[in-house]
């Protein structure tokens, strides 16, 4: 029924034959609320509505035949372009390329690691999946079970440190001639200095081709700060938005893209290895705006 709001709004817009500036003001108030209901960050929603106002009060639009249609289109188009209009590929140059998965606790990193493993395996890249979580009970076993289920090479955690775990896996990858290495790291808070420092250390030492921030689609307002912190301290090259098979609108995607510029490279759409989808900006814009 949140979806109903935006379609109602567009319906209201479409019935008008002429939009005054005052109309645009009240419409944008509604648009802002719909974005907030979709978990778009307050500041991002505000800026977005300002951008729309500038475009919508243009002479051309207000006097056009169906200004409501034009404004509705401006909103979806603007959001689509903000979400990134080009298909974003994984950077896989490197011998072997290393992809590091990072993010908050429980966001879906280990599951996504297995999904990317199958994805790369199907591309003929023979990946090695490396368990680097020394803290969570049965974290290494979780990845190991997934690897045996999907026929993927597995490098167990080295309980002395995440760094040692990475080292072990790179040695193993060289020995077994793996075409890529996926690092599954422990969940951590963006404000945990020590744990963020661990990622910085891994990045500086092993220079991964990709650092993917794995984020739960139901993340609320704080997605902005989370993405900004990870990007400023560690640097991220892409985002994976998980649990998109639920009914969360996923406004976090817009906030994170706005603050980091990092593209959403994949969507998690379920718990199985095959539940990894491409990111379609237009489709996401429709989901966010309902």
């Amino acid at each position, binding site marked *: 029924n949140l979806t109903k709001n935006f379609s109602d709004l567009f319906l209201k817009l479409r019935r008008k034959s002429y939009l005054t500036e005052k109309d645009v003001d009240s419409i944008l108030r509604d648009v802002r609320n719909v974005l907030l209901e979709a978990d778009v*960050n307050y500041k991002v929603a505000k800026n977005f509505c300002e951008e729309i106002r500038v475009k919508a009060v243009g002479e051309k639009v207000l006097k056009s035949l169906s200004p409501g249609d034009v404004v509705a289109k401006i909103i979806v188009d603007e959001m689509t372009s903000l979400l990134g209009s080009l298909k974003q590929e994984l950077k896989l140059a490197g011998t072997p390329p290393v992809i590091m998965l990072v993010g908050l*606790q429980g966001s879906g990193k280990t599951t996504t690691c297995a999904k990317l493993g199958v994805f790369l395996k199907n591309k003929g890249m023979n990946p090695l999946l490396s368990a680097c979580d020394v803290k969570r*009970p049965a974290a290494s076993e*979780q*990845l190991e079970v997934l690897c045996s289920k999907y026929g993927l090479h597995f490098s167990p955690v080295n309980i002395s440190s995440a760094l040692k775990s990475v080292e072990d896996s790179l040695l193993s990858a060289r020995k077994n001639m793996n075409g890529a290495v996926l690092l599954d790291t422990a969940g951590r808070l963006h404000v945990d200095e020590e744990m963020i420092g661990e990622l910085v250390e891994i990045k500086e030492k092993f220079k991964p081709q990709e650092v993917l921030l794995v984020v739960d689609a139901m993340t609320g307002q*704080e997605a902005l700060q989370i993405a900004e912190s990870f990007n400023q301290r560690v640097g991220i090259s892409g985002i994976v938005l998980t649990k998109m098979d639920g009914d969360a609108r996923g406004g*976090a995607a817009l906030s994170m893209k706005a603050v980091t510029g990092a593209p959403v490279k994949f969507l998690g759409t379920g718990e199985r290895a095959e539940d990894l989808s491409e990111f379609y900006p237009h489709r996401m814009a429709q989901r966010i705006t309902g």
Partner: protein
Amino acid sequence: AGSRGKLSDEEISSLEEALITSDMGHELALELIKIAMSKDPDKIYESIRSELVKKLEVPAKTAPKAIPYVIMTVGVNGTGKTTSSAKLGKLLSDRGRKVIFAAADTYRAAGVLQLQIWAEKLGIDIVSGYEGGDSAAVVHDALEAAVSREKDVLIIDTAGRLHTKVNLMNELLKIDKVLKKKNPLYPNETLIVMDATTGQNAVSQAKIFSEFSSLTGIILTKYDGTSKGGCIFPIVEKMKIPVKYLGIGESEDDFEEFDPLKFAGALLK
């Protein structure tokens, strides 16, 4: 002043930002702003905070006594059910209760092992099935063991499931049937475990989970992050489900009973 009460537009805007970024939603934020605008500037914090506390003070449904007392954790994937089950087990065990766990997540990779490791660390008894087994069967076995081993509390840790997946939600009904067969009062408590970073989707989760089990409380996890946990307000206020515990870290002691005044104060910081 005047039609906008005693606050400047800028003050209203910054109050609005603070309230909305707490994840409480724009409707509740607007309600609180209207209150703020009718008050003297030095009374605003107090009046908003007391309004929030009022919304959070929901009488806990006093669960009937039973031996063993059965508590079940439910919720969407990755919110902290297994970790919270362990923490709750420790809390009750420290209070002298004889606790036993049911590792009813027979689905997720290493789901059973994760709780087994916790149980071993905490010195708490555990009944587990095997991966791929039937979770209702694990619950049945755990109930039997709880009785025969004379335990006071059985804590059932279930698999994560999205509320939008009907077949997974139906599994909860199956577990409920097994429990009710043993004792119509079971489960004494069903706690929905929610992540403090969740936004507006929290309401949808609570609504649908409450259609499949009678929720008696919320465990709000990862409150040690920067999210204010405002997503719980509409759930507590409209559905009358109280927040019972806060998860404030990844260790067994990072668990505290919910304090509405402290929570409301922290939100407004």
